[in-house]
């Protein structure tokens, strides 16, 4: 695997539902170790793009490549799952598995056909739970924990797959301020330590600005901008994208771009 080869690549991907395209000619490349944020207004196709990238929505046009190999044509779901993991926005859970059992499900692509976990698998699961900081809740039922804890459990499940690429759909949407920062810091740490390529759909631009090396902006199914955070998050571009005037300053505490409202309470309309 050459250093130049992207971990995940979307090439001219057009995909959608019921014959209607939602994402048009998307081209995106994710390198190992990168933390890329994907942002845009509601309904612009972020989740659809993520689904195409994760292997569950075959594109009508174009290709998705995982380490150079076509994800849909050349790889079986098992092979994909060994290298790519997804943390969804929220999984409705009716069945009361314990957190440990859920995390162990992350080992599915690595298990033999007979499907019993070995001691090594248990080790991986324990490490994943520790990384996600949920080890102390291992024996609790997943139906009994809070939303934030559930999210950490699913993160642990994804990490148990020992992926090289991690896709997240709004990983901080249910969390309070402290946990938002903690969650993203955790992700950041992990990807630096293990060389994970991370692509996260983010709705909070400031959090994205803090933690992502690169931001990709999307509108109406098309990728508008793709580049280093400070270059992409400009006032003009953001105002046009969200139809809302903003000001972008430098966060004095962190040195990263910070997006502020330009129109507050006093403004009518």
């Amino acid at each position, binding site marked *: 695997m050459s250093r130049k080869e992207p971990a995940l690549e979307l090439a001219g991907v057009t995909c959608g539902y019921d014959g209607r395209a939602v994402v048009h000619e998307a081209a995106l490349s994710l390198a190992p170790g990168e933390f890329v944020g994907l942002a845009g207004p509601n309904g612009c196709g972020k989740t659809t793009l993520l689904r195409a990238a994760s292997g569950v929505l075959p594109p009508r046009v174009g290709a998705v490549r995982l380490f150079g190999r076509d994800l849909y044509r050349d790889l079986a779901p098992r092979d994909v799952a060994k290298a790519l993991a997804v943390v969804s926005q929220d999984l409705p859970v*009716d*069945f009361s*598995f314990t957190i440990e059992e859920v995390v162990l499900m992350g080992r599915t692509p690595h298990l033999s056909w007979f499907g019993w976990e070995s001691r090594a698998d248990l080790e991986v699961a324990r490490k994943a739970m520790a990384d996600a900081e949920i080890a102390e809740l291992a024996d609790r039922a997943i139906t009994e924990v809070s939303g934030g804890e559930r999210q950490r459990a699913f993160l642990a499940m994804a990490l148990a797959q020992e992926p090289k690429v991690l896709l997240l759909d709004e990983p901080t949407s249910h969390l309070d301020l402290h946990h938002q920062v903690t969650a993203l810091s955790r992700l950041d740490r992990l990807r630096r330590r293990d060389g994970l390529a991370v692509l996260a759909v983010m709705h909070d631009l400031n959090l994205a600005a803090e933690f992502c090396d690169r931001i990709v902006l999307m509108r109406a199914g098309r990728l508008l901008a793709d580049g280093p955070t400070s270059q992409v998050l400009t006032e003009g571009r953001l105002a046009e994208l969200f139809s809302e005037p903003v000001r972008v300053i430098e966060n004095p505490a962190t040195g990263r771009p910070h997006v502020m409202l330009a129109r507050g309470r006093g403004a009518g309309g």
Partner: protein
Amino acid sequence: MTSRRWMRTRALVALSALLALVATGALFVGTVWVPPGELLAGGLGGTLGLRASRVAIGIVVGAALSAAGVIFQAVLRNPLAEPYVLGVSSGAGLGAAVTILSGAVALWVWALPAGAFVGGLLTMVLVYRLARVGARVPVHSLLLAGVAVGAVIGSVLMFLVSTASVEGGGSLRSIVWWLLGSLQITDLTLLAVVGGAVLVGVVLAFVLARDLNVMVLGEEPAAHLGLSVERTKLVFFALGSLLTGVSVAACGLIGFVGLIVPHTMRMILGPDHRTLLPCAALAGAVFIVVADTIARTALAGVGTELPIGVVTALMGGPFFIALLRRQRRVTWS
């Protein structure tokens, strides 16, 4: 983790012991009181053999329906699903009715089970085809198709029953008796075939049980975890339908087992299907053997038997009421 494994072993042992106890007890009890000495002296050629065959098929059918219930509840992600929800039972019922009314039963001993099985199989294929949307078979689509096909076939069946009722006393009673379920199986070869098929089916389901755990998370998460979701669904659908079809073919429609037993076992043992499946199978066997024993002894005074479907319904109804009340108390406390 070890605690769960420990629990599984204990549950399996306890259930096996219970099954052995109940099955043995069932041999000594029945419509007619036969003193144990005489019973044993008669050997398998007499009343003992009669009861033994019923206990045997009861174990087989109880295990099959419970396993099928577990499978469908997982694949459909609905803890109230049961083996008959996808229309296999209606199709088998129609197959049985057609076989009885056409007189084929007089020609061939296996006509009835064969007719029922073919009916169930064709319905299964029909439902699956109807539910397919492109390359995928969405779960809600399966449910809708199953209910719809079941309703249509059910109405045809009722039509046949209504036109048959006026003239054919025996045919009508055959159909009704079949619709209520009965463990009266006279052919040992049939018992062996059904038993073998169910054993293979349950073992296969057990081997694949982990995939059921993953399926329960949802289809997309399962796909993300590396499962070939459509293929897995097809395999489990076929497995569940075959288990159901074979049971229904042999013993008619025995209701409630496929719903109550998996549900109860899940409440007690948790949702891990590697534990749930074998335990539900054993528990289902116990349930049916007990129900059959009641069916055989309740009307002993008049020399006849209750249809087992009536007994399972009578056992199942109050059970569910109790469940509901318990749940209400829990939510409001």
